[in-house]
């Protein structure tokens, strides 16, 4: 016997949460582009998306976020913080790859120094993930050791029913359990079968790739130039990546008052690492692409024992010149054999 949440009850479900003062978020499609935002009710959601074009990370790490405001007077500087509210949130309808990405970045944002902006949002949020029963040409979670029903990073996992009329509900964390308690009356016991999960083919041998990447000999391999020759150095892959976390800190305002902000930044950009002197440690696009791959599949795992790629496939899906992690790792995988 398992618990089932029927689609028909979703309206009540959302209104119950909102009545309790919980903010509700979910996947929404607008002008051919999709992402997560706050929704008043379930009607705003687009439940047919395989994957939103923008990632879940926007809810924890907005593309631009005021951190501090300052005002400067005679002999005094006053600052105040824009710390995110602790109002509880439920994110309904995340995908396993996105949810896993949030768990990966927890490691980074808690690496000795704790980033309150990230963690305040993380700790107030319950991620209710829907397992994938469909995938597209770019999905590659299975190549990264995850899968269409991975639980990593989720608080509740929902498995679509074969009938399409709802989801089997699995609570994974205490937070998830709590979110379910308030809709306990909507969770029906049942024996319905879940729809089969999407079949996502394994595209490369991850271990072979990480072994190749770990070999210092390969750092200056010709491979990097060849694989990234057509890279135009935009930030699409990084900005649409659930785990890319690089940022810039910028002041906006004048020397009397203004705001210090945290803005997304990208290792694809030439100016990202440029010293004031003009020296640039990663002066070529191939060095920058190498950084991105090495960061995900070598450096990150050296520090945190996990690769920082979830196989969502967005980097390839959205690349203006059809590059991406997929092609690079497929190529490395072949090199290694």
């Amino acid at each position: 016997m398992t618990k089932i949440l029927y689609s028909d009850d979703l309206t009540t479900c959302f209104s119950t949460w909102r009545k309790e003062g919980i903010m509700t978020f979910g996947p929404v499609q607008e002008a051919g582009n999709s992402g997560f935002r706050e929704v008043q009710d379930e009607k705003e959601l687009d439940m047919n998306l395989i994957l939103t074009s923008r990632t879940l990370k926007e809810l924890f790490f907005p593309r631009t976020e005021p951190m501090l405001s300052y005002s400067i007077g005679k002999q005094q500087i006053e600052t105040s913080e824009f710390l995110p509210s602790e109002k509880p949130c439920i994110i309904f309808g995340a995908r396993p790859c996105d949810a896993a990405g949030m768990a990966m970045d927890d490691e980074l944002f808690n690496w000795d120094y704790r980033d309150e902006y990230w963690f305040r949002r993380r700790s107030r949020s319950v991620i209710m993930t829907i397992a994938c029963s469909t995938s597209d040409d770019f999905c590659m979670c299975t190549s990264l050791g995850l899968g269409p029903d991975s639980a990593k990073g989720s608080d509740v996992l929902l498995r679509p029913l074969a009938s399409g009329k709802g989801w089997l509900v699995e609570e994974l964390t205490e937070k998830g359990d709590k979110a379910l308690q308030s809709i306990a009356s909507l969770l029906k016991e049942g024996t319905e079968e879940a729809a089969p999960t999407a079949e996502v083919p394994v595209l490369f041998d991850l271990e072979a790739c990480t072994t190749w990447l770990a070999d210092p000999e390969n750092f200056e391999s010709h491979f990097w130039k060849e694989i990234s020759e057509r890279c135009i150095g935009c930030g699409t892959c990084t900005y649409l990546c659930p785990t890319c976390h690089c940022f810039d800190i910028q002041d906006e305002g004048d020397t009397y008052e203004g705001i210090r902000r945290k803005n997304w930044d990208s290792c694809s950009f030439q100016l990202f690492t440029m010293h004031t002197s003009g020296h640039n440690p990663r002066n070529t696009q191939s060095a920058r692409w190498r950084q991105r791959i090495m960061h995900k599949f070598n450096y990150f795992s050296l520090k945190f024992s996990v690769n920082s790629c979830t196989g969502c496939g967005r980097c390839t899906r959205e690349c203006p010149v059809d590059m991406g992690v997929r092609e690079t790792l497929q190529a490395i995988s072949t090199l290694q054999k």
Partner: protein
Amino acid sequence: MTDTIIPAQNNIYRPAVMKIAATRNEAPGVQTLRLEFQDPADQEKFAAVYRTGMFGLYGIYGEGESTFCVASPETRKDYIECTFRQSGRVTTALASAEEGDLITFRGPYGNRFPIEEFYGKNLLFIAGGIALPPTRSVIWSCLDQRDKFGKITIVYGARTVADLVYKQELDEWAERGDVELVLTVDPGGESPDWKHRVGFVPTVLEEAAPAPGNCIAVLCGPPIMIKFTLASLKKLGFEEANVYTTLENRMKCGVGKCGRCNVGSVYVCKEGPVFTAEEVSAMPAADL
């Protein structure tokens, strides 16, 4: 790599406020600021954590933050001195700040020079141009407890006589008698009354020929100088493990999050900025 020391922080991006207690022009475009914390709690936190080698992010609201070393030693923790060259947006604003103005400071971050491991050893300091500040904090850390070390040699060079920084301190070191000071300027950079050497640091270093036995070398300078000086040190018989240097990369957060400063898998902000030459050799050269 020495361990990173983590100060207690609530919001890791919120800086402390410091007052400019004094400013000093060092060389054309180069300034030293002496800074004092406004809030005693910040001073206390700093004093509890600061060790020579750590760095900070110095800022002016409205312009941003800029990373450089703390140039004052761990033996003098009731103020911070920093020396910088006016070049970008933040340093330009810092350069136009005056005594009594308030600026911001985040840190201290990073690891340190393991000075207690240097006890009983001879010390060789080598610096080029604007890279004397990180070396200087080690120099003073040692001079303030002079009896714990053997012979101390300082080799310092700059492009021209005008570009030498800390001129007063150079005089002070020259006069102490317990420090051997070798000054040099690049060929063509000498003034008519220049009494010291003329030549590039690596060459001058080889001429001075300090003995590598029981000696620790601390080397800071622009990448090109480091490269050639390391070769000279090798020639003189120094082992890479006994040569310390600092790496300086562009940083925004200073705390391992923003993703810029890594050389290979090593985050300069978290695992540096102090490294032995051996550790630097192990990093991918193409990423430096």
